[in-house]
């Protein structure tokens, strides 16, 4: 049994494990041909613990063992991968912190360790579509050594974080600790309705792609609206985001990368129907002999232009099948993808690169889950910045949700859980 239910007034430990055996067919992909592959994607073990007011959060991501070649994801890019999603760091999150409730209306928290900077939307791992969106590197900043402070006043939260700008070089590569503090981000979140939250974020990230420094800096903006309502075995989720990254050289903007994304899910009696549309700019880089890889760091600060990706994805998932402590939710996803020259287009030509500007991606798999449920449905937020805790406080006027906030489901009952 993977669940430790050692709840007491002062102590709470929760453990969850997940993995998604999946098969994907990209038609075509960067090889200019069709490619079908199978993986164990998103294998992760999450641990949350609280004791005497302190909270510990850990996420061990094992994609370095199962996805070294990357997961076929047409349009995806980042960390030396292109048209494949890169494997995440083994230490995806490892943080400790404390929430303090000062008054009925005001509380604050401080967390430190390795994890997410307060920016943008939730990590795609906890969202309805299995395939990551192209905008992952525009809309999240993760796997950094972070210090995050959050203030909460009634239904408003303000987070401020500082971290190292360098993104991971690989699942086991250490961060450049000397760069801690060279980057910052902030996120303001309000909850005008109990089911609706709106947030705006800013971030200044120094040289994410050149670990030693000296690469292009990023000035990032994001506005996100998120809606979620669950009633019994039914639920509705929707999220819309606009994100933008200016890549800068010594303060001068040299690349502009934008993204608009909307996604939603409807759950009825445990079955989930999901959809996502996005339009995202991607910087094109010179691939290596492997068309799915780009050198890290790049050999200079230039790129091959920008491409623009428009992707419509649909997914359907049956109610979860359960056997003892294990549950499995089968799903099918279909994505229709259009690639075009961006602004500027540079050398990018979708037909020269892929043989066509219209591509498809088909996936099927099973979301396997064991252990505590819903413990990290808002990956990317810590302490009092978790809107669920805030909503509960707002609705119930509860004085202190610490110790509960990581176990509050965001999608209602288990039957609607991903």
């Amino acid at each position: 049994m993977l669940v430790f239910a050692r709840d007491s007034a002062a102590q709470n430990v929760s453990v969850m494990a997940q993995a998604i055996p999946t098969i994907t067919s990209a038609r075509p992909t960067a090889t200019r041909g069709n490619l079908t592959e199978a993986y164990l994607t998103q294998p992760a073990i999450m641990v949350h613990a609280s004791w005497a007011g302190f909270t510990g959060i850990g996420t061990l991501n094992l994609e370095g063992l199962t996805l070294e070649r990357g997961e076929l994801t047409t349009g995806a890019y980042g960390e030396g991968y292109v048209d494949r999603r890169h494997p995440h760091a083994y230490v995806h999150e490892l943080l400790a912190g404390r929430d303090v409730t000062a008054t009925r209306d005001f509380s604050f928290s401080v967390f430190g360790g390795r994890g997410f900077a307060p920016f943008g939307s939730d990590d795609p791992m906890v969202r309805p579509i299995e395939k990551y969106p192209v905008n992952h590197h525009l809309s999240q900043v993760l796997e950094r050594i972070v210090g995050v402070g959050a203030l909460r006043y009634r239904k408003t939260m303000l987070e401020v974080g500082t971290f190292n700008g360098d993104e991971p070089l690989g699942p086991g590569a250490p961060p450049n600790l000397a760069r801690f503090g060279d980057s910052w981000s902030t996120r303001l979140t309000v909850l005008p309705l109990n089911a609706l939250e709106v947030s705006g974020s800013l971030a200044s990230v120094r040289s994410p792609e050149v670990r030693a420094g000296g690469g292009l800096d990023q000035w990032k903006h994001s506005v996100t609206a998120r809606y979620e309502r669950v009633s019994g075995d039914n639920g509705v989720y929707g999220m819309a985001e606009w994100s933008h990254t200016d890549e800068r050289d010594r303060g001068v903007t040299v690349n502009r990368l934008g993204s608009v994304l909307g996604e939603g899910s409807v759950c009825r009696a445990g079955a989930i129907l999901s959809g996502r549309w996005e339009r995202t700019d991607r910087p094109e880089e010179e691939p290596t002999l492997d068309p799915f890889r780009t050198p890290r760091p790049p050999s200079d600060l230039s790129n091959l232009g920008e491409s623009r990706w428009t992707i419509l994805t649909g997914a359907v998932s049956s109610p979860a099948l359960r056997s003892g402590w294990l549950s499995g939710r089968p799903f099918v996803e279909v994505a229709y993808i259009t690639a075009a020259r961006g602004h500027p287009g540079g050398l990018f030509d979708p037909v020269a690169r892929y043989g066509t500007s219209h591509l498809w991606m088909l996936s099927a798999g099973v979301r396997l889950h064991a252990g505590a449920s819903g413990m990290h449905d808002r990956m990317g937020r810590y302490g009092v910045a978790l809107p669920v805790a805030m909503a509960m406080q707002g609705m119930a006027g509860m004085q202190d949700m610490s110790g509960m906030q990581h176990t509050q489901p965001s999608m209602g009952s288990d039957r609607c859980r991903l």
Partner: protein
Amino acid sequence: MPSVGNMRILIAGVLVLAAGCSSDNVTVPRTGTSPTALDAPLKVLGMGSETARYTAEIAVKGSTAYTTTWGSRPTLGNKVDIWDVSGATPILTDSLIVAGASTLGDVQVSDDSTLLMVATERTGGAIVLYDISNPRKPVQVARYSTANTNPGVHTAKFGRVNGKLYGFLSIDPLNLTPARLVIVDLSDPANPREIFTRVIGNPYVHDTFIRDGILFLALWNDGLDIWDIGGGGQGGTPDNPKVLGNVRTVGGEVHNVWWFHDAQGGKRFAFVGEEGPGSIGSSSIGDIHVVDVSSFASPKEIGFYHVDGAGTHNFSIDEKNAVLYAAYYNGGVRAIDVHGDLSSCPGASNFNVQANITRCDLKAMGRELAVGLLEQNRGVYVWGVEWTGGNVYASDMVNGIWKMTPAK
């Protein structure tokens, strides 16, 4: 319904975000700003077309030109094109494929015109040496690749010191492995031998220039280093160099250098290329910086040349006529008059606040002589240029090779 208080907070947040959106500094747009041609362009004699691959660097020996290829179009840049440039229009006569290479970059002919050196990147960095006794039929004599030349040789330059030929290799960084310089003894071209290596560059070392026993190193944000390797009087040798001096040019991103010897024997100035971020095929950024190296121990930047909407890459100088030809990517080819004292410029000086120095603006001094290729009304992206034999040759990533008449 949202409360009035929450709506105020939401509006405030949006305003904060909007303020952030508008806090941009000076922006160089990728589109809409194009470098312009002068009234008197460099006259184009002809073009040799290469559209299956992207063309990279150029080297010319007599009536033969060699151009490397780069990247993926999607055909890999693993070919060296061999051109007959005896006529007005370059004619492709042959080519060679560098086995096991995915992209090439630098190419150079040795000072005795016997060897051709090609640098490879990505799939295991290497230099490949060819005997060009018959210039149109190069014969491979060695392929040199070691752990120190991985992951790629960004540039490779010949240098002769006290009569012996050496190769100076600028190696790319990869992941946790930093950039480095490798010097190889090429006195036996069939058996290159590493004699020196050092981790150097921040984060890159992109090029070198060797002349009179002095080694110049383009160290990106660490500026320009000057080393004694036999001609600096400090006891330096290629296998035991001595650092003489360094200068941080404005903007950093030092990519290449040429130590200019004028027809009167003057050796006061070096020209430094700054390679800013570009969007290949569309845009580029980066100035030419003029450095007074009359004292190797304390070199000083004294001038610059700037083109709106374009940045420089490699140089070639007609030293007899004191004309610098610069590849300027989407800005074509620039011919600049570099005779005389470049540090004296009444009415054409410019004070740089960040660096706290006053520099001469070569364009404001009227030293821009001509611009090449922009009048062709087709997109160009010029990687390299070579003045030789009374002609100017340019390698254009998009189109191939151009032959032009010089500015003087």
